[in-house]
């Protein structure tokens, strides 16, 4: 039984097809890396999964439940979409932390807002907020930033900001955590600290989809690697098979080029 199931996803921008029919399943606890050259549609796929873009065709299932169907208007409704959005966490390339809030507030904000809609919020306000804060503190501890709780994003390095962004994405306990080139905006020195946080999450069996240009990292951390080319999944397999014995010419060229980088 797969956790996430994507069927026949298609997406065009201004009549230019970007995704040309993506079928993808992700098992619980699996770490799936998506590699491929710029413009191959990796980021668009991730954005469709996270409802930042609306696919033109296709269906998405979570735990056998239909959560998106391009043919059905119901799934395009804002409230419906917001509910499904909570099943996923997304870590952006450019972090996108909220600059006016400190680290702790960044991690707590969404949970606090969500708690307000709970029926018992008024009566148990103190306890609910206490629990949100202790969850946030432990997440920040998990990404190794306990000493930065009260710092603002502008006072942190890029690597630290991205680690806060990871903690923030985990705060709502998503089923699937997605990463959109999480280290592309970082210099090599800072890349390491972010990747090691992601590796730790992989050990804890958190289901992840990672769009990345870091081949060595994809090889180390993934249970499965997907190679996208021109809007389709051109090749997929275990990291060993994909990196050591690429079957398609396209992947051979791509891997060859990325070794010279």
């Amino acid at each position, binding site marked *: 039984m797969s956790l996430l199931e994507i069927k026949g996803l298609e997406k065009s921008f201004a009549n230019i097809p970007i995704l040309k029919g993506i079928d993808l399943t992700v098992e619980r606890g699996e770490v799936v890396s998506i590699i491929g050259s710029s413009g191959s549609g990796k980021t668009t796929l991730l954005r469709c999964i996270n409802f930042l873009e609306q696919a033109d065709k296709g269906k998405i299932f979570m735990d056998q439940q239909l959560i998106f169907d391009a043919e059905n208007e119901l799934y395009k409704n804002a409230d419906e979409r917001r*509910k499904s959005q909570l099943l996923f966490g997304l870590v952006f390339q*450019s972090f996108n932390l909220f600059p*006016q809030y400190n680290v702790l507030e960044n991690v707590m904000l969404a949970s606090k807002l*969500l708690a307000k809609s709970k029926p018992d919020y008024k009566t148990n306000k103190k306890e609910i907020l206490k629990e949100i804060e202790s969850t946030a503190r432990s997440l920040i501890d998990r990404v190794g930033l306990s000493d930065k709780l009260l710092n*603002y994003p502008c006072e942190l390095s890029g690597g630290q900001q991205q680690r806060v962004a990871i903690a923030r994405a985990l705060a709502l306990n998503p089923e699937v955590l997605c990463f959109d080139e999480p280290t592309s905006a970082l210099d090599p020195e800072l890349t390491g600290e972010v990747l090691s946080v992601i590796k730790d999450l992989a050990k804890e069996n958190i289901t992840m989809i990672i769009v990345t240009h870091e081949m060595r990292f994809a090889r180390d951390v993934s249970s499965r690697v997907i190679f996208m080319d021109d809007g389709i999944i051109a090749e997929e397999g275990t990291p060993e098979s994909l990196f050591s014995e690429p079957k398609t010419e396209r992947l051979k060229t791509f891997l060859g080029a990325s070794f010279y980088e």
Partner: protein
Amino acid sequence: MSFWNVTLSLWEGFQTTIFIFVLTILMSLPLGLVVAFGSMSKFKPLSILTRAFVWIIRGTPLMLQIIIVFYMPGMLFNIPSESRMGAVVVAFVINYSAYFSEIYRGGIESISKGQYEAGQVLGMTKSQVFFKVILMQIVKRILPSMSNEVITLVKDTSLARIIAVGELIRHAQDFVSDGLIWPLFYAGIFYLLFSGVLTILFGWLEKRLNYYKG
């Protein structure tokens, strides 16, 4: 005419000036935001209409707008305007809403898409994203242009005398007909002090928002 008498008279005019100023700020600040949303609306007729409104208001003298607001009801519907002060405040609120709306629009459009998306993937509603994430960032960015506009308003209030509202300049001018010119210069000091206080206030606000960058 003693210095004391002039001071008392100018003080009376100054109160009217402050009254126009405060009412205009209180109403045009929120109204400007509404106008900004109108001009950014995806519903084309609304955005075109709003932008035309902003164009007309910014493209004609405020003095003319005050006259029109005051005389128009009487000319068109034969209802004479009862309150000169009412007409002045309405004209000022309309005028400043238009200017503020453009400042808001610039601020809103300067916030990166990533901020909205970050809120969205965290399951926030559109209004939560705007009020909890975006608004504070806009306020910080537009503060310098807002302070500019607000200080302009201090001096624009003197246009109210065109329909004989007794604000500061009008009170000072009354002395000119008695052959006294210095009360006019004295009135200038009132404006200077008022805008000085506002400058300090805005400086303080900017400093308060300086705890973060972005």
